[in-house]
């Protein structure tokens, strides 16, 4: 709860600081804000409390996910140095919008009432619509913002529609009461079409937010057009919040209707895995590949949801953490390469192993992690997801499918590794890296390897 208040207040303070002539103070300030939020958030550990007449509940689940999302943002911001370098007029606004967006994300992992879920999604999304179009002079960025906004508001509408139908079926917005109403219906042997329809429509709404197929069409264009820093935020924090909210919804509200939504969820998962992985193979732009890769990771995360047992939350938490660390590093390096070499294709990375060994190494570790190869966090992410799913032996086929697609994933992740180490550099120029960005990259890489060798640090939390 304190984290929501703090984030909002800090966001506003930040806007005022933006009036100052020098933008140099902004980044350290935001980093300190986020560190404070991270620390204060941890104080709620093992101290479950409800707020606003049960609208929000801060439990360990909420604290763990809030922690990961705050840390992700904290590790992401050092890559915004370029904005500071050119003294971007709107820097304070960008940072404040990110903080506000984080407020929405925190609400999405701690809601107790479907209204709060809806408000959280909206707060998160509106800030993101603006940030997607923040590069005002770029047509691509404008296109991304418009597409994201039109599609996003359409699906928010669908979500609201679902929530309303659920209300029609159960006469409540509170997720615990919804669960009780369903249990009552099941006990009476009744079925409720309104409720069933509502659940399915709500699933569609959330699937859009986490870019799960077949509601993923916006993702590649939006990811590609959005300025890289915000793409990274979109594919880490937004996705983590979405999946965490999704699991919370299924677990706390709709567990009793498991048989109703289970086939739908399996279908979405399979489509997401296949489309994400196959789509990524044919891309020539690294950034667009990362968009498809983010779809495919939504698929792996959904597998933990399909498993739907006591291991699911650990699997989602660990996977989100592993995916976030790797993705920040990848986008961070991409941003610096893009700023210096002008584009986001695979060729832009040629010879990076020689010109910038640190960037190339961080990128390699990040790609290994995304591909799920041991020694990196991504391996244990996939491991926890697969073992959660295999608790149900009937789902063996889905694990086999995911295994085959994970092997496909190695193909496109390694394209960039090959470009960095094995292709001659077309332009031998060294990519400029600030010392703060280098330090952050080292930190993230160390974190990825740490989680890959001592996964119990995170997996034992919830």
């Amino acid at each position, binding site marked *: 709860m304190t984290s929501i208040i703090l984030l909002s207040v800090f966001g506003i303070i930040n806007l005022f600081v933006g009036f100052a002539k020098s933008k140099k103070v902004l980044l350290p300030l935001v980093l300190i804000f986020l560190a404070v939020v991270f620390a204060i958030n941890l104080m709620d550990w093992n101290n479950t409390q409800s707020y606003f007449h049960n609208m929000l509940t801060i439990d360990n689940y909420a604290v763990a996910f809030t922690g990961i999302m705050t840390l992700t943002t904290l590790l992401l911001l050092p890559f915004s140095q370029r904005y500071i370098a050119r003294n971007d007029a709107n820097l304070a606004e960008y940072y404040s919008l990110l903080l506000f967006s984080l407020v929405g994300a925190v609400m999405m992992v701690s809601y107790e009432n479907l209204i709060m879920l809806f408000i959280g999604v909206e707060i998160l999304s509106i800030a993101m619509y603006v940030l997607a179009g923040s590069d005002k002079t770029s047509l691509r960025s404008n296109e991304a913002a418009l597409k994201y906004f039109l599609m996003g508001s359409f699906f928010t509408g669908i979500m609201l529609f679902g929530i309303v139908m659920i209300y029609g079926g159960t006469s409540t917005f509170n997720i615990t009461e919804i669960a009780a109403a369903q249990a009552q219906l099941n006990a009476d042997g009744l079925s409720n079409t309104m409720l069933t329809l509502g659940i399915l429509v709500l699933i569609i709404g959330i699937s859009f937010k986490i870019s799960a197929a077949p509601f993923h069409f916006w993702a590649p264009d939006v990811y590609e057009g959005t300025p890289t820093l915000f793409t990274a935020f979109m594919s880490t924090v937004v996705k983590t919040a979405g999946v965490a909210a999704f699991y919370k919804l299924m677990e706390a509200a709709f567990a009793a209707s498991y048989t109703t939504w289970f086939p739908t969820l399996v279908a979405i998962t399979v489509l997401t895995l296949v489309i994400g992985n196959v789509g990524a193979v044919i891309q020539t732009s690294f950034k667009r590949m990362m968009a498809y890769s983010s779809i495919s990771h939504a698929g792996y995360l959904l597998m933990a949801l399909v498993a739907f047992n006591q291991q699911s939350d650990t699997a989602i938490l660990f996977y989100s953490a592993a995916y976030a660390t790797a993705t920040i590093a990848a986008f961070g390096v991409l941003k610096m390469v893009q700023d210096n070499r002008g584009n986001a294709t695979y060729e832009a990375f040629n010879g990076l192993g020689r010109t910038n060994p640190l960037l190339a190494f961080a990128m390699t570790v990040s790609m*290994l992690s995304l591909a799920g*190869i*041991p*020694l990196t966090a991504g*391996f244990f992410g996939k*491991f926890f997801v*697969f*073992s959660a799913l*295999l*608790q149900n*032996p009937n789902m*063996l086929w889905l*694990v*086999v499918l995911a*295994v*085959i697609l*994970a*092997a496909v994933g*190695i*193909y496109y992740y*390694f394209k960039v590794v*090959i470009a960095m*180490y*094995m292709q001659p550099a077309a332009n031998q120029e060294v990519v400029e890296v600030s010392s703060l960005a280098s330090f952050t990259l080292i930190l993230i890489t160390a974190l990825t390897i740490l989680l890959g060798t*001592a*996964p*119990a640090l995170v*997996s*034992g939390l919830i």
Partner: protein
Amino acid sequence: MITALLLFWPALAALLVLLIKGQGAKKVAFVAALVEFALSLFALSTFDTQSGATQLALSFPWIESAGISFSIGMDGISLLMVLLTTFLIPLIILSAYKHEYKNPNAFYALILFMQTGLIGVFVAMDAFLFYFMWEVALIPIYFIAAVWGGANRIRVTFKFFVYTIFGSLFMLAAFVYLYLQTPGTHSSDINAFYQLSLASESQSWIFWFLFIAFAIKMPVFPFHTWQPDTYTESPAQATMLLSGIMLKMGIYGVLRWLLPVVPFGVSQWDEVVLVLSIIGIVYASVIAIRQRDLKRLIAYSSIAHVGLIAAGIFTLNEQGLQGGVIQMLSHGINVVGLFFIIDIIFSRTNTRDITSLGGITQNAKALSIFFMILLLGSVALPLTNGFVGEFLLLSGVFQYNAWFGGIAGLTIILGAVYMLRMFQGVMFGTKSELTEAFSDLTMNEKAVLIPLVVMVFWIGLFPNTFLDISEPAVNNLLSIIKR
């Protein structure tokens, strides 16, 4: 404790080597590898060779909530594999002495880092640790082959990488399934896996999940298609690592994680595996006869030899298993020696084409002798190391099925054909313009070849030194398989 030291020392040394600029890296790497060899000899001296149990063990919780522990230890089979690794790696580093690789610190650090993975595979007593180390060994060799390799290296090594990962992901899925079958709060300890009693239908598919991973690594026909290209395109040291040690990971995996874990699965499919292996022996031998590229020829001969080892192991009798273990050592020594000799020839003539070589015996007496000895070891002439292994393996296959034994026995004849044809083409005959000024071995090259040749005779003359170490462990394994 010594096991942990054996496991982590190369990785630490790799970090150290990484810091050294210039060609000094190889000296440090060589010393570090020698220290590792000394450590393994120390482990041997404290090892009780009478017992088949896991010794020098160490275990502490790794992911405590999931019952996964970091547990390592060695029985006789593991110890022999560790000794093979620690014996070969210094020689492989030494064999690179004349090469001036770019970024030598990264090159040698990767070799040492890979050694940690290899040792880890051989000492892991927990399924997930085994899988973990299995991939840790793969990543460095991919980079060694892909960065320092030949012209087609990128495509070829990538195929190798994706192929092996594809297989090992199935192994992971099987391990997760087995892990979930263990009672209570689950455990991935090897003994928990050994105590499982699974229905034979599930054993049947688990068998294939595990077998595919190991078969790709070995490689067994028809999973071998990555191998000749990868061996050919990799730098000589990577080829030695792949063929000398990494291939043994696959065979070791079968011994430790396949046969005892799913014995019913094995009894359903052993005939299929034997048939595949024997097809592989004949097929690879016939192809080897037709090769003109020396590296490709040895690559195919390696498929044939591994086919025989796989066939012997799947007979599940003591001769077959013991033959498999001793042949892993022999094959590692012979193939590393042969690839080194090819590298020597290549570095002087810049070709590996048999038809454009010839007459090297006239200039290089010492090279001819070493080459001949390693070659005879490889074709299993009595008194050499190859004979012991192939004899035991063939007698194992013969006990299983006389027809299989007969066909597998062709390996001896065909092996002699392609090996002697190669020797004839390269070493005898008239000199070509490329071999006109061929110089004999340097001290450095002799320093690599002498230990290898000593081992050829040692295993050939006194095989019991090694068979005694593995015998209790093999019997222990057989008793678990036939429980």
